[in-house]
């Protein structure tokens, strides 16, 4: 009986701790110091990270984006190629417009 009481006591203490933690998360005390605010923001950011991947799976599926990240070097290469292509098209357009102006 004594060991059961001890176990119940420990479980109750853990539960109270968890309730306090959740209450602070839902409704942080008004008298938090800047350091407590900062610590809470970091704690919440880390707690949210665990849920983030599952959320992002849903967000990306909704946006129709699948596949792997290309890596920053490949992405830069793709961006530069696209920028060059846009510049080429812009020059071409400008040339056509100048030719039209010259004709008229």
């Amino acid at each position, binding site marked *: 009986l004594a060991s059961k009481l001890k176990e119940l006591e420990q479980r109750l203490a853990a539960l109270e701790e968890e309730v306090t933690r959740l209450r602070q998360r839902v409704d942080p005390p008004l008298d938090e110091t800047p350091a407590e605010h900062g610590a809470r923001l970091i704690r919440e*950011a*880390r707690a949210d990270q665990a849920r983030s*991947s599952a959320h992002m799976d849903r967000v*990306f599926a909704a946006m129709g984006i699948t596949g792997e*990240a290309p890596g920053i070097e490949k992405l830069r290469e793709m961006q530069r190629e696209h*920028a060059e292509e846009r510049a080429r098209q812009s020059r071409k357009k400008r040339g056509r417009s100048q030719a039209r102006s010259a004709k008229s």
Partner: protein
Amino acid sequence: MSPFLLDGRVLATRYLLGPGTDRLDHLFALLPQKRLFCLMWSVAEVVALLVRARHAGRLTPTLFAATMLQLRLEVTDNPHFDKLPADGPLIRASLALLQDYRLNASDGIALQAALWLATQRPPPDNNVVLVTSTRSLLKAARAEGLITFNPDKQSTADLDALIGP
């Protein structure tokens, strides 16, 4: 070692080519990821800018998808890069800064987050490098005693000095 807090516009220059992109690349390459912070709100700002760029033709659908996947890899799914929540207490605390420094709402929240982040380390490491190219935010952050880095104007050598050995 000071943490670096990136505002939304600066974070976007990692994913859209712009004047500060090479400095952002330098920062991502050299800074240990656990020193990188932004607001989750800033991630939304980056996505909004990417969507706008796609609709303006600055990104093809393929390039948009690749950029989003890279953002996910480096930021949203990266457990070492903390994304701070812009919650009620943070927003409320930022309100006074809006008046003091005439900041827009996002900049006020970023400044308040940087000030709170600065309380998390003992001196002399209790400073935060606020990375922004917004002039009013740079000025306000300096007035509050924070270190700043403007990737549009400062050099990679300046950045190296802030990153440290």
